[in-house]
């Protein structure tokens, strides 16, 4: 167990669904909002064009507008979530919106890497568990990151893979830059012999 208060070692929450496949980063946060120079407060822009009409009015028919992510912090998405751009604004927006884990049968590379750096656990589910989750909106899910296991209650729970260092950082709150900088001497030596 970790002493880190922000640790995602154990996450209990309910799911909300975005079943569409190939949800790209332009859906997660449209490019026209990328002129920001900070990373704060982007949650209101998450899925902007799904949530608001042309005049900026919240759409009544969009469930995301009434979602309480305090209770529903786990996003279950269709295959290949987060494809497209490398913009870290996507996980910043999702985290600020309240998302703490994304479960899909496929998650795009750069998004997966960016998510783990921003306290969102990216989880690849096997097809039958993914299909079950897509049929059971709002179920209570227990994610045990230490054991790499997702407990779905009555549903087909599953083990998932996560890059060990990303797992370590998520649980312990370790800062990867600190780890990288601890190699300064190696980097200097490399530069000396490749110059």
């Amino acid at each position, binding site marked *: 167990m970790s002493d880190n208060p922000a640790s995602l070692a154990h996450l209990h929450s309910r799911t909300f669904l975005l079943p569409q496949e190939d949800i790209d980063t332009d859906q997660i946060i*449209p*490019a026209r909002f990328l002129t920001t*120079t900070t990373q704060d407060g982007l949650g209101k822009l998450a899925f902007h064009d799904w949530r608001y009409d042309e005049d900026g009015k919240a759409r009544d028919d969009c469930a995301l507008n009434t979602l309480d992510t305090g209770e529903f912090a786990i996003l279950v998405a269709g295959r290949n979530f987060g494809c497209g751009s490398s913009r870290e604004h996507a996980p910043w927006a999702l985290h600020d919106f309240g998302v703490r884990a994304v479960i899909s049968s496929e998650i795009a590379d*750069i998004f997966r890497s960016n998510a783990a750096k921003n306290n969102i656990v990216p989880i690849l589910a096997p097809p039958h568990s993914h299909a079950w989750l897509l049929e059971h909106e709002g179920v209570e899910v227990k994610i045990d990151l230490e054991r790499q296991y997702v407990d779905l209650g009555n549903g087909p729970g599953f083990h998932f893979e996560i890059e060990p*260092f990303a797992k370590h950082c998520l649980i312990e709150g370790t800062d990867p830059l600190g780890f990288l900088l601890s190699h300064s001497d190696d*980097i200097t030596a490399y530069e000396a012999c490749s110059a």
Partner: protein
Amino acid sequence: MSPDDSTPRSLFDKVWDAHQVKAETAETPGVLYIDLHLIHEVTSPQAFSALAARGLKVRRPDRTLATIDHSTPTLDFKAGEAPPYATRAAQLQVERLEVNAASNSIPLHGWGSEYRGVVHVMGPELGATQPGMTVVCGDSHTATHGAFGALAFGIGTTEVGHVLASQCLLQRKPKSLRVTVNGRPGRGVSAKDIVLAIIARLGIDGGTGSVIEYAGEAIEALDMEGRMTVCNMSIEAGARAGMIAPDETTFAWLKGRKLAPKGAAWDEAVTRWSQLASDPGARFDREIEMDASEIAPMVTWGTAPDTGISIGGHVPDARSASHQKALDYMQFEAGQPIAGTKVNQVFIGSCTNSRITDLRQAAEIMRGRQVAPGVRALVVPGSVQVRQQAEAEGLDQIFVAAGAQWRQPGCSMCIAMNGDRGEAGELVVSTSNRNFEGRQGPGARTVLASPATAAAAAVTGLITDPRSLMEPAHV
């Protein structure tokens, strides 16, 4: 763990091995050295803030190169006047990079530089991108630079901070995938058509977790601009990077460029670069082969880049709810021929297709013709260099005489951040790389195509096979 000399290695293996500061272990990723870090205004400000908050300095400003491209206006403005930014936020973002670059001694090709351009056009043009290098940028189309036999990939802003602070990244070695395109494509079939066909074959996530090496006669026959077009779109199949072995075409293109090695250093570099090609017998995790002669001019029908079909084809039946949603968004009916669809706007530009050869292909179609009534056509060169070259060749005159708008360089309608965009419901034929919902403006419908196909759409007002407009002399 260094492989012994007799193990055949791929181009990717060789570049990867040469940049290992620290090999990966079961617990930790390896430390990969980065030779060239490109930055732009959109994905860098938070990284500089993170560094400042920790009191860290940029380790190698001399290996960092900045430009402004995404939020910059493409409209003309007079010297001494402020650029006509679309929003105050865009202006502040550019100014932030100007300050960050100056205070960290990072060379910036900003306003006034004759090398300003879309980051992936600028790097190669300067000769900053070289074979065998590792190149990163906070931008998913960084794979473009792989056309030179570099390992080039996109990173998030946290990692931009890592590279600024340490000139390294924590990485595990991706898988490898070789795409071999045999034979030669027919008349009017360009690099863009080849890569759209490759992505249609692989699928939008078919390259996930992989570095692609493009090989085969059709790839070797491409000029550097065409190779950049192919590598550029690797991410649209989910791949981390795309690479092509450097050869005489590469060396000839690079020679004499501003930052390329000179004199004896050049000869030494060419000798080194000539060793980079994959060894015979090098192993790939996966291989696919395609036949270039079967590829026709391609256009996309859906809202993901893997929905390319041949221009003579029909919009396919929806295979899933997501496909149906894409058809509804695009206002296409399954089974309809895609050619003949009415077009509202045409965009010729982006880091996929804004180089001089792209503009020549578009100009060839537009020469002596008029943009169809009611169609707006934007031609946006990738850099100041491309713009000057095009003007020296008189291409701008061809575009302007046809009724197209000849703009200043930038990302423009590729990402629609700077005020250039499609309106809701408009159909845009675009030489860029992404047709996601809303990418070119809320509600805008994007059809991806080659420069020739885009130009043909401009002058006919319809999605049109460019081969029908080509001079018989070019048969």
